[in-house]
């Protein structure tokens, strides 16, 4: 059950942190239509994060930070707003700064291709909550993927400037990609229990989908190894980038200033 909780946190934190990043675009997108779409994607991911965090709390109440007596915060909020950085189990990819529109697009593409492959398999999870989140999420994330893929092609085949930017974006984001497929002991045990797929099994299908996008866009990812870990640890172990600390400081500021607050 601790494994199930940890696994739900991994998938929930990926969605929560990327939703937080995407929401930063709000009122800053290149066009109004994109403001609407990016907010929609953020809302979808937030909608996936919430039941996953709640499920983590239910599976392992010990994973929920202790709040002062009388705090009305539900478990999903205790986990989102009162957990310290080393407790967050998202991959480093989702916490990286937005950068320009090309960078956010490529980041979303890499993430959504992986997450769609994951959710497709997770529909058959033995855990009913995970299966339900996946069943609902597949349609959403397929849209996210297609949206990011379309923009990747448009930017790559748009102007010289946009092509330059999307190549630089791919260069910058690509080192974070491999971490998605490096399986964590929790993921291996969860896979053995029939609750989730083995991360390595997603490598080939994701590469196939991305290959189509690169072909359509005329892009090639750089041939560099994944970003080094820190003493063997990375996002799934709670070892993040310097970006996450600032993101959480801002995200948690109001909730932590009012630990007994009702919202």
């Amino acid at each position, binding site marked *: 059950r601790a494994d199930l909780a940890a696994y739900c946190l991994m998938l929930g934190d990926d969605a929560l942190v990327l939703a937080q990043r995407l929401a930063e675009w709000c009122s800053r*997108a290149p066009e109004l*239509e994109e403001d609407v779409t990016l907010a929609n994607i953020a*809302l979808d991911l*937030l909608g996936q994060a919430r039941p996953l965090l709640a499920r983590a709390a239910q599976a392992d109440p010990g994973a929920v930070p202790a709040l002062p007596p009388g705090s009305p915060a539900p478990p999903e*909020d205790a986990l989102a707003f009162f957990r310290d950085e080393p407790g967050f189990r998202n991959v480093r990819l989702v916490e990286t700064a937005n950068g320009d529109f090309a960078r956010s697009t490529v980041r979303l593409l890499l993430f959504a291709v992986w997450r769609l492959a994951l959710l497709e398999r997770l529909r058959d999870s033995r855990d009913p909550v995970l299966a339900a989140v996946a069943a609902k999420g597949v349609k959403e994330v397929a849209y996210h993927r297609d949206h990011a893929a379309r923009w990747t092609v448009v930017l790559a085949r748009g102007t010289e400037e946009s092509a330059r930017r999307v190549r630089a974006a791919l260069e910058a984001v690509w080192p974070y990609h491999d971490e998605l497929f490096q399986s964590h002991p929790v993921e291996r045990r969860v896979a053995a229990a029939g609750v989730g797929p083995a991360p390595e099994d997603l490598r080939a299908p994701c590469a196939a989908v991305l290959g189509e996008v690169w072909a359509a866009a005329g892009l090639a990812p750089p041939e560099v190894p994944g970003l080094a870990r820190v003493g063997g640890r990375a996002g799934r172990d709670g070892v993040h980038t310097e970006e996450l600390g600032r993101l959480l400081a801002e995200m948690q500021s109001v909730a932590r200033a009012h630990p007994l607050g009702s*919202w």
Partner: protein
Amino acid sequence: MTAPAAPAEAELNARFEAVVAAQERIEPRDWMPEGYRRTLIRQIAQHAHSEIIGMQPEGNWISRAPSLRRKAILLAKVQDEAGHGLYLYSAAETLGADRADLTRRLISGAQKYSSIFNYPTLSYADVGTIGWLVDGAAICNQVPLCRGSYGPYSRAMIRICKEESFHQRQGYELLMTMMRGTDAQRAMVQDSVNRFWWPSLMMFGPPDTDSPNTAQSMAWGIKRHTNDELRQRFVDMTVPQAEALGVTLPDPDLAWNPERGSYDFGEPDWAELRAVISGNGPCNAQRLAHRRRAHEDGAWVREAAAAFAARAAGEEAP
């Protein structure tokens, strides 16, 4: 087939006025007086700009929303504002305006937006107060526009007012929840109401005695009530809500007047309103700079999309 003789302008105008007088709708292809068209474009554009600039004060708190439920509600609301902006720009385009051109006018300061958004949001309670007071005042202003004479605008307003009412209830519900919370939360709500009460009253515009365009707009069916009428309606609607909430409205002159069957209230600080309208408000420069920067930062993306679309069109029709 011969083209019908063009009817004389006087005849067209008579027909136009008859439609307006009958409270029927003018549609994009109908003849309309140039002044009507210009006035409408300006009003719709200003309204669209207000939705777009209005994303900023609330958007300021999305990253810091104190619960996941509130984060989703707030993000969806700000997204709705972008959507309202889109409908309204479309309505303006039916009158021959161009969205890119209207955006340029917004960014250059040539066209205005609602001054209320030049006030800062300083706590999460402001999200609730904007929903309750600012959206509430907007609805008072906008409900009559749903019966306005220009079809595309009045239809957009019907949809917008429906969503705004929903936002207003959500804002009020947030405040109600906070008032049932801690002392610090109650203080936040009161402070927020103190800051937003007077600016909300100013949203109805200057007193009727200082509002020279009202008569023509009412004649054209673009406007249906005077500023002071709407302001009074808003006060009468809001005072009981404030009582239910348990907050004090910061106006010592506020009192029920049984003879009028309405609340008497004090005079807003019109000098402050003039300062804000003339560009000197707490956030005018910030709001425009934010919009300008988003527009400029996005230019290369829009150019890429245009270039890609042009190439795709060329390939389709070789």
